[in-house]
């Protein structure tokens, strides 16, 4: 993965820059010892690493603004970091950059049940937002798999999704407002607890901008009343096509399950060997979860059963109690771990129109044989967000490169059938060089104009999202 050459001037002035940063932060706010900086040399995309110039851990919006102001004046690139769980390298530093971590900013600032919002500092973890309101019967809907660790700041940067966004939407649909600090230290409030902007929807473009427009320090989030209950069913099929058709029929029937998860045979076998959840040995398997009162759940499941039976499933298993519900989810939740037991893996997240599911799965199978690498598919079927897991051996020379080439082919296929490169993980560095597959030069130019306005010197997370040659002229300014 190519990254720009570090700015020699910045490296040479390191001591003076750190002295200025130290002056605007509390005693423990600056990290510059090489051994402590190792934590920040990568995120969850661990294949690529580089220690940063330094890391700062501010506690307030004012401290964030002071740090950014210094870096802006000194021309130092800044890489914002939530909890470092990005799978796309969104928080990977360069040698001349300062990591700005928001992990110490994790307070709940306001909870308002009557107006149904919570205001938090952005370093708070996703799950602990729900944790702050669940005793009162509320929850925060977006639920990325890393929700125990990932920060709201990173969720906003990547517009994170999760298994339940079929019903509740992704981060952008649940974000009401932010406090944003621009690279020059200006503090801007976008949106607010009332949810709709009076003028242009700048909040809408900040969400998902991968930390390139500003550092979000505080956020107003929508909270929802918790449903009375939830229950999953498991349906097994003898072909991917039929499973895909069943998903389509459920959606067309107007039933809105909170989740429809799909696993293919390689993935089912791996998980069975690992977690022994008792899944049937079949070609494709759906886990469908519905919500509501007991009566409502039964009504929805009866309808789903009727639709599923018309497709001749090899198995239709309703959870009779809490324990059975857990077993149905067990395999799905262990899928990544199970694949990891077999080998190293790379997780993709291209999205496709649901109707292309059988075609895409068939092509992935063919490519798997061409590249000589195994792949398992587990994904959010209701919204077409695929997660092919390509297995490779990191210790075998050339395997990573082969895996990346295979991954790129799958993502190109996703775009070809009318989908996109990434549904919820973000572009980061991982998919940066594939952007031209999906976008024309004019499309990317329009996006880069936004960054020109928010960050004219291109100092915030500059070597991400856009192919290096596309952004070269701007980054040099």
């Amino acid at each position, binding site marked *: 993965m190519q990254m720009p050459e570090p700015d020699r001037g910045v490296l040479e002035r390191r001591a003076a820059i750190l002295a200025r940063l130290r002056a605007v932060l509390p005693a423990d706010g600056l990290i510059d010892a090489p051994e402590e900086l190792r934590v920040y040399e990568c995120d969850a995309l661990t294949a690529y690493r580089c220690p940063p110039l330094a890391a700062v851990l501010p506690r307030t919006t004012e401290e964030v603004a002071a740090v950014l102001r210094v870096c802006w004046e000194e021309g130092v690139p800044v890489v914002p970091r939530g909890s470092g769980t990005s799978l796309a390298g969104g928080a990977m530093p360069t040698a001349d950059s300062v990591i700005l971590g928001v992990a110490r900013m994790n307070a709940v600032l306001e909870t308002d049940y009557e107006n149904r919002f919570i205001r938090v500092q952005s370093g708070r973890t996703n799950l602990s937002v729900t944790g702050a309101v669940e005793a009162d019967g509320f929850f925060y809907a977006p639920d990325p798999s890393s929700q125990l660790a990932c920060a709201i700041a990173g969720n906003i940067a990547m517009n994170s999704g999760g298994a339940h966004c079929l019903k509740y939407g992704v981060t952008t649909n649940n974000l009401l407002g932010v406090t944003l600090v621009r690279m020059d230290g200006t503090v801007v409030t976008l949106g607010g607890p009332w949810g709709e902007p009076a003028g242009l929807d700048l909040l809408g473009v900040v969400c998902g901008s991968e930390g390139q427009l500003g550092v979000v320090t505080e956020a107003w989030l929508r909270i929802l*009343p918790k449903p009375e209950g939830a229950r999953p069913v498991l349906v097994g099929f003898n072909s991917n096509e039929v499973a895909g058709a069943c998903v389509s029929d459920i959606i*067309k*029937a107007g039933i809105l399950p909170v989740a429809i998860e799909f696993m293919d045979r390689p993935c089912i076998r791996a998980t069975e060997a690992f977690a022994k959840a008792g899944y049937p040995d079949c070609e494709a398997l759906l886990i469908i979860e519905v919500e509501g009162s007991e009566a409502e759940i039964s009504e929805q499941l009866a309808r789903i059963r009727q639709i599923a039976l018309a497709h001749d499933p090899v198995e239709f298993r309703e959870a009779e109690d809490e324990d059975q519900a857990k077993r149905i989810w067990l395999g799905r939740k262990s899928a990544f771990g199970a694949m990891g037991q077999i080998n190293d893996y790379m997780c993709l997240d291209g999205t496709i129109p649901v*109707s292309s599911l059988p075609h895409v799965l068939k092509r992935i199978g063919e490519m798997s044989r061409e590249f000589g690498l195994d792949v398992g598919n587990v994904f959010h079927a209701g919204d077409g967000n695929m997660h092919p897991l390509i297995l490779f051996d990191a210790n075998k020379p050339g395997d990573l490169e082969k895996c990346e080439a295979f991954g790129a082919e799958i993502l190109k296929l996703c775009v070809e059938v009318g989908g996109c490169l990434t549904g919820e993980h973000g572009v980061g560095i991982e998919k940066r060089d594939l952007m031209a597959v999906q976008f024309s030069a*004019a499309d990317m130019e329009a996006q880069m104009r936004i960054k020109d306005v928010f960050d004219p010197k291109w100092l915030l997370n500059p070597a991400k999202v856009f192919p290096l040659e596309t952004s070269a002229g701007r980054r040099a300014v």
Partner: protein
Amino acid sequence: MRPSSEAELAEAVAGAAGPLLVRGGGTRTLGHAVGEVLETAGISGVELYEPGALTLVVRAGTALAEVEHVLAGERQRLAFEPPDLRAILGREGVSTIGGVVAANGSGPRRVQAGAARDACLGVRFVDGTGTVVRNGGRVMKNVTGYDLVKLMAGSRGVLGVLTEVSLKVQAIPEAEATLVVEGLDDAAGLACLRTALGSPFDVSGAARHSGQSLIRVEGMAGSVAYRIGRLKALVGGEATVVEGEESAALWRRVRDVVPLQGKAGEIWRIVTLPTAAAGIVAAVGGTALWDWGGGLIWLLSEPGRGAEVAAAVAGKGHATLVRGQGGPVFPPEAPEVAALVAGLKARFDPRGILNRGMMG
């Protein structure tokens, strides 16, 4: 000008000698923009409709009624319930889907299903230089590059002219019912809406006008009956249940602000916190229709109440003068936000020809 394709529209914008007034059907235009009229209605038709994937790709000039007709053929609809504001704004013409998206026109179901911007999956537009830009796509989850889709929704044509939108659509549920609560004053009537929205019963509409509070649920028949029963017990008081078409008619009245139609005075559209909704109306005076549990106020007031409205709303939301004389239509932005808006306009429309003077 009335181009009949995206390419023609791009040419028209690139070659424009002066300001352009971008118009879908002209049914929800606000503000004081001037210029040669550039109509989008010639760029119409459905590009792609996949009912099984809940997606519709449609050219921006397609009539809203046509979109709704196509969807109804598959028992589907636009979840965000776009309002028809012709009567209160005194307009004629045919509303287009591009105009709906450009105005982020969202009705009562916004509290449950989101706004127009939340249903938008992708856009194509022509910027102020005449360049065609594509963003988003037609899939439900897409974080590839910046989200210009949300930026374009509600931008009222000041950054570019929409030529195509992809939308997430919704199946029409088999049943709906509305709880009509009477005998409460406005403060208590609005509090009962907040109680309903804070319950687990998945309320899809919460509005108040003419002394009645309305609470809607939709879904499968058994579920609707169950939830409306629970809500009735929860909010108490003098409540009756209305079902089916009778319920739907109540919500068309709320959506299109029918109770304020045909009355003299200025009309404000105020977005605020539900708990501030009763106080704002009491402070300004006039006749109100509250939607979104109080989060949206349509307020019919005497002319010249701008200062009182601004004072009542300060720190609690914002107000737009949708029908009235004088003064700015859209509220002024904070200076640091205005600077960003000006920067975006300068880059997307460097000549400043698109809907000049419309927003800020």
